[in-house]
């Protein structure tokens, strides 16, 4: 048997993947056509969180570098793309305290271009931040990224001639529909999954397990950490752009640490390092969050009035996180990835009679 077969996709796997993706996209299409407005909004939310979580997982899970920046990245992406898609007239009307600086005031770009630029700008920010941090092994990444989040918020609040300050940006065109959001999710998952499965992914995992040994086998740990961080930031920034054109109003207080916390919960529940896990957990947490909305609303049970407790969902999520950390440290997937071989073996092990009397 050739050893490599265990790592490679064969014809069957590729066919299965294509079919499943097609079926899934068709289901989404049906949901888009026949679902209620509320339902499509939840699904769009799901897609955005899948993309954000999978890209966050690349640096935190796969590479094992503890970044706390995804909210800041989403904010940069959101502001960048929104400033590009708004028409000069809209911008002039929005920026009432201080006018928007030239050339942002006259630029008007299509959505897709604005997303790409949002991604690039965000990746560049990550590059600038990563450079000094990863020179010293990356131990300070958490602190630096946390600080960076604050800086972004302060800048968003105060650089009025770019961000419009606390007023934020309103009237962003609602470009993000099912197609855009799921397009973003599918492309992000596809590309990051491929990266993780490639030789580069192996090097990133090696860094996560042992930096010293990685260097000993010729892996430039600095370069690879930079790579993971900037790629992660790129998709995080694009996700921010998608998000901005979904909620259509953005302000500095939208991108708080809560967003990062949510994503952290998702990738921990999914299993740090597993792209598959991040997708599954993003689904669960976003849908779960909707279902749990009940606990924050006032309830009438048998004539009894229970007032809703705002923030209760966060408490529940935190509890779930703590329980996962204690009882299921490896999350849903561990650091495993889904593969057809793995799935087929799982199914067959269920079908096989137990007890060795085969």
């Amino acid at each position: 048997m050739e050893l490599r077969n265990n790592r490679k996709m064969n014809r069957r796997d590729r066919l299965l993947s294509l079919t499943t993706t097609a079926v899934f996209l068709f289901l989404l299409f049906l949901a888009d056509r026949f679902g209620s407005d509320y339902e499509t909004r939840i699904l769009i939310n799901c897609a955005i969180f899948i993309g954000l979580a999978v890209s966050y997982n690349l640096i935190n899970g796969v590479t094992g570098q503890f970044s706390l920046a995804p909210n800041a990245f989403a904010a940069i992406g959101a502001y960048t793309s929104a400033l590009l898609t708004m028409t000069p007239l809209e911008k002039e009307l929005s920026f009432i305290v201080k006018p928007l600086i030239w050339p942002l005031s006259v630029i008007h770009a299509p959505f897709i271009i604005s997303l790409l630029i949002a991604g690039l700008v965000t990746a560049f920010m990550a590059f600038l931040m990563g450079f000094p941090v990863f020179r010293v092994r990356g131990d300070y990444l958490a602190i630096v990224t946390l600080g960076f989040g604050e800086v972004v918020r302060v800048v968003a609040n105060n650089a009025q001639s770019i961000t419009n300050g606390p007023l934020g940006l309103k009237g962003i065109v609602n470009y993000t529909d099912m197609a855009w959001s799921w397009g973003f999710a599918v492309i992000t998952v596809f590309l990051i999954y491929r990266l993780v499965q490639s030789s580069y992914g192996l090097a990133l995992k090696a860094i996560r397990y042992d930096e010293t040994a990685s260097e000993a086998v010729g892996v430039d740990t600095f370069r690879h950490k930079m790579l993971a961080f900037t790629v992660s930031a790129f998709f995080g920034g694009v996700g921010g752009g998608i998000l901005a054109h979904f909620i259509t109003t953005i302000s500095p207080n939208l991108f708080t640490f809560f967003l990062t916390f949510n994503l952290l919960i998702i990738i921990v529940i999914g299993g740090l390092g597993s792209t598959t896990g991040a997708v599954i957990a993003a689904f669960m947490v976003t849908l779960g969050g909707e279902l749990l909305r009940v606990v924050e609303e006032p309830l009438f049970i048998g004539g009894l009035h229970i007032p809703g407790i705002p923030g209760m969902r966060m408490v529940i999520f935190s509890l779930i996180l703590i329980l996962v950390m204690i009882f299921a440290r490896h999350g849903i997937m561990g650091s495993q990835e889904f593969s057809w071989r793995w799935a087929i073996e799982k199914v067959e092990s269920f079908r096989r009679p137990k007890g060795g009397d085969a």
Partner: protein
Amino acid sequence: MTFFACENLTMRFGGLTAVNDFNLSIEEGEIVGLIGPNGAGKTTVFNMIAGYHRPTGGVIYFGGQRIDGMKANRVNRLGIARTFQNIRLFPELSVFENVLVAHHGRLKSSFFEAMLRTPRYRREEEQMYSRAEHFLAEVGLTDVAHERSGALPYGKQRRLEIARALATGPKLLLLDEPAAGMNPSETVELLELLLRLREKYGLSLLIIEHDMKFIMRICERLKVLDYGMTIAEGRPAEIQNDAKVIEAYLGEE
């Protein structure tokens, strides 16, 4: 041109001089041993050569260029691979993946090409798989290829670490106590393996080892360190009878 040479290497940690004025040259295909009591500074010499410590003083030449102070990954790509005294595998990766990753440093395709799986990347990936299969077979670990490397017994972990180092394509291999924790029959196998690999790949070996029988049999030349100082050097037979060496070892016990 010398193949490999250290001149006046010194390493100080605060007030402690771990290695003092160390000189060594190695010819192509040579097997040299580095011995000495615990704490003599042997591993520190490896760490300087392999790019983990910038020497406090002295220079290191390899293949005609200075490599002292270079980063470890660059030293590796120039052709020096090492193993660690306390085995450093990627425990959560499979045995096969441990060897695969050793080829990554030579990959020419960018991450972008890897993401898109361009023809060039695929060609390189094929090559990477072949090499990994080859080196696993070389150390006799093909049958455990898909096991988690952290779950292997000790002796096999040592051999895997050698396969991984070999897969980076070195000309000089630094082995830090490769026989530690092995039973006598494993030690003999290791000896045969190393001699065979040396022949086949034209390797030079620098070996640290406490197992005297092993080191005396495999090395053509030995260097003895004590408290960072070189106290003796020569052929195994000469070293065995050197009064200073005997004293250093006995004094320790």
